């Protein structure tokens, strides 16, 4: 997948530079680009490590378990196919907590576990049930307390205050989450109705 995107980006830039007569710009962009990549990683490293370090303390202290415990009854309401104390929903709330706290490395394996557990009680076979869809939609809305990578990139670009975006990110991701959840619920109702009629 990424291979095709990369192929497209490189060929598009060469064709485009050829047509607009910017070949010399492109040539210097090639050497400069590889160099920029390395610099970007180095300048992001401090902020990223700060947050992975702090959030590891949150995990070790049991804070993630507490948040996950608070979330699970709420989640079972929008994922009615599973009981709040089921293995599936426990993995779901652990995944969402990890996402909120920005524990990216922990979140993906937890999400995969959650999906596999949910699939065990899925009567639709290779189609996701409405709770599974709800889970994926919640994951794509990216609700997080500290958007560490965006902050790290802002820091790398020399922002006077990298964290100024925090409240805007909170509002935007909460709006995205509510619309996503609402859309998933509406679609679930509609597809249920269609099934009953047909």
């Amino acid at each position, binding site marked *: 997948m990424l291979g095709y995107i990369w192929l497209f980006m490189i060929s598009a830039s060469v064709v485009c*530079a050829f047509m607009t007569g910017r070949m010399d710009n492109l040539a210097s962009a*090639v050497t400069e*680009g590889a160099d*920029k990549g390395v610099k*970007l990683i180095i300048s992001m490293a401090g902020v990223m490590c700060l947050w992975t370090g702090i959030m590891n303390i949150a995990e070790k202290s049991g804070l993630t378990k507490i948040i996950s415990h608070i979330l699970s009854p709420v989640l079972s309401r929008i994922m009615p196919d599973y009981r709040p104390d089921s293995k599936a929903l426990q993995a779901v709330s652990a995944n969402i907590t990890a996402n909120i706290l920005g524990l990216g490395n922990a979140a993906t394996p937890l999400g995969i576990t959650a999906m596999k557990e949910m699939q065990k009680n899925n009567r639709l076979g290779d189609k996701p049930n409405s709770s599974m869809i709800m889970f994926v939609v919640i994951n794509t809305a990216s609700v997080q307390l500290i958007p560490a990578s965006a902050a790290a990139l802002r820091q790398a670009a020399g922002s006077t205050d990298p964290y100024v975006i925090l409240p805007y990110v909170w509002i935007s991701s909460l709006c995205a989450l509510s619309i996503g959840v609402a859309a998933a619920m509406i679609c679930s109702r509609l597809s249920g109705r269609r099934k009953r009629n047909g």
Partner: protein
Amino acid sequence: MDKIGIYAVPFVIMFIVVFGAVKKVDLFESFRQGAKDGIGSLISVAPSLIGLVLAVNMLDASGFFDIICSLLSPVCSAVGIPQEVLPLGLIRPVSGSGSYAVLSSILEKYGPDSLIGKTASVMAGSTETTFYAIAVYYGAAGIRKTRYTVPAAIAADLCGIITAVITVRSF
């Protein structure tokens, strides 16, 4: 509104550290372990990030972004999204490191504290690599049909982008 972000960070850090101390966590060792994981994941994304920063830099120098932006600017102005953030909106759903690369080029070009820079940062922070997440999670569970997952997820993403534009502009 800007003050909230400035106050939130030190308080979040203090809260987590104090909570950890109350729960008798080995504070510095936990921090060190977590930071080490952070370095580890940065190193693991480094090769793809270098490749993508290179490609984005090439696209930018070739004038590709300017062409795409001006082509799509009628759509953007209809919805009220600044056209400069479009490349980010296009790559965000498919690639995480790709969107880092694009965001970094936008921040460098327009400044991280400009309206465009802030909008792009909020967009990146409040949306996800939607198609990647769908592929990974459904793939792991052996799901082949997605039903209404994609439209619902796209609705959420679009809402995130539009709210990012509106909130940054109005506060």
